[in-house]
């Protein structure tokens, strides 16, 4: 509720500033102009949104599959941990801004280079907290499973995997937050459609309000995904004590 008030105050201040300063609309459009573009350009926005949303969702799905598989491999095999973990860190120091155009050269203007970039950016925040959670499980919990006669697979299934699920949710939420950035970045490097592409095109056409509208649509989508994950986590993991809304005091 408090967050909503801040947003309202921010938008109001923005509106006021554009009126008082008398800036041209193509320099800084008023929120009302952005809202107008959201309505007028809705077909154009929807068309481009569909492309970006596909890139983000498919990229996230790839990151999730890849991330979970990698986490399991790294957890179960110390050889893989020694051999692969440094390489994983290595993937994160790849300057994506520079690599993205190279991928476009390789894969073309389609969805493939975008998936690659979104997945590359998003799998890391999924792997790190989840692997960390697996490694920090109370040894007595594992001892309990062993004393009940559990096999390696059963220890993973009954104790380790559920213990790590809250961290997997945390990682996925982090991944969602960066997925939009990754998708837009990928579109900047070469694409025919998408909200990032639309923003880039709108500026030389002096359609600044449309560029802002594209950003609003992208933000709304990312927030919806994030909120959906929070709701899913509450529903699936009611026992996890972490408060997904971030640090807050219980009253």
């Amino acid at each position, binding site marked *: 509720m408090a967050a909503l008030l801040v947003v309202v105050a921010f938008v109001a201040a923005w509106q006021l500033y554009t009126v008082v300063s008398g800036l041209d609309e193509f320099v800084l459009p008023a929120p009302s102009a952005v809202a107008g573009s959201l309505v007028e350009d809705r077909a154009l926005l929807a068309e481009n949104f569909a492309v970006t949303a596909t890139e983000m969702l498919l990229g996230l799905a790839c990151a999730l599959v890849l991330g979970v598989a990698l986490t399991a491999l790294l957890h179960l095999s110390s050889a893989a941990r020694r051999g692969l973990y440094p390489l994983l860190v290595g993937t994160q120091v790849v300057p994506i801004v520079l690599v993205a155009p190279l991928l476009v050269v390789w894969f073309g203007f389609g969805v493939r280079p975008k998936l690659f970039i979104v997945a590359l950016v998003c799998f890391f925040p999924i792997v790190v907290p989840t692997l960390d959670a697996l490694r920090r499980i109370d040894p*007595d919990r594992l001892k309990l499973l*062993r*004393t*009940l006669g559990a096999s390696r697979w059963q220890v993973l299934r009954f104790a380790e995997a559920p213990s790590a699920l809250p961290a997997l949710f945390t990682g996925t939420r982090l991944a969602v937050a960066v997925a939009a950035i990754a998708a837009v970045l990928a579109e900047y490097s070469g694409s025919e459609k998408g909200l990032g592409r639309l923003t880039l095109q709108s500026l030389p056409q002096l359609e600044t309000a449309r560029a802002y509208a594209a950003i609003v649509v992208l933000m709304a989508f990312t927030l919806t995904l994030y909120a959906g994950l929070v709701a899913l986590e509450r529903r699936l993991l009611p026992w996890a*004590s972490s408060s997904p809304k971030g640090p807050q005091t219980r009253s």
Partner: protein
Amino acid sequence: MEATSVKVARSQMAAEVVLEGVAHAYGEVRALADIGLRAAPGEVVAIVGPSGCGKSTLLDIVCGLITPQAGRVEAPRAVLMPQRDQLLPWLTALDNAALALRVAGASKAQARAAAHPLLKDLGLEGFERTRPAELSGGMRQRVAFARTLLAGAPVLCLDEPFGALDALTRADTQAWLAGALERTPRTVLLVTHDVEEAVLLADAVIVLSPRPGRVLATLAVELPRPRAATDPGVVALRAQALRAMR
């Protein structure tokens, strides 16, 4: 200590536990030195001693979680009830109790059906679907005990099962455990730092020294049950055990 002197026998038949000359060290730290003890089938043997005297290590050895560096261990399958209840927070009370059955290969429905009557016996009816975070300390302990019993092992190793409970809950839970063991006798190794608890519950009390743990005294508790902390026999044995610890 040579590894060749270690012998661990796991018989499925007799629920007797015998340890002879068992010693173990973690690196430089010697946890146990020359432990000998015997628990006859159906007997409750309490192991008391100061903190850090290797009591938990001893249970790990009996349960086969650790192979001792020296000595002879003869024990059938033994199941450990670890310190703190170690209930899994995502499972309900019923599913936590049924965990041993699930591990043994039962389906969820079978395991629940088998665990349900025991929870009822333990006075947990109506709490089957409650998660551990919403159970009281005493209830959690009983769920953990149900899980341990349902593992179906002839020997139970209980590590400070009442350690985390307040005095009143502790007395209630002790009385309840004494009753439960009377109804379904098992061979029990009970680790505790509370001498009174040992005398109240056990047929024999083994007093360990500070680290490295060795047996200072073995006291037979030949007192009628149920016992109260104020019984003269209990008071006398408690004093005797405390003297042995000094």
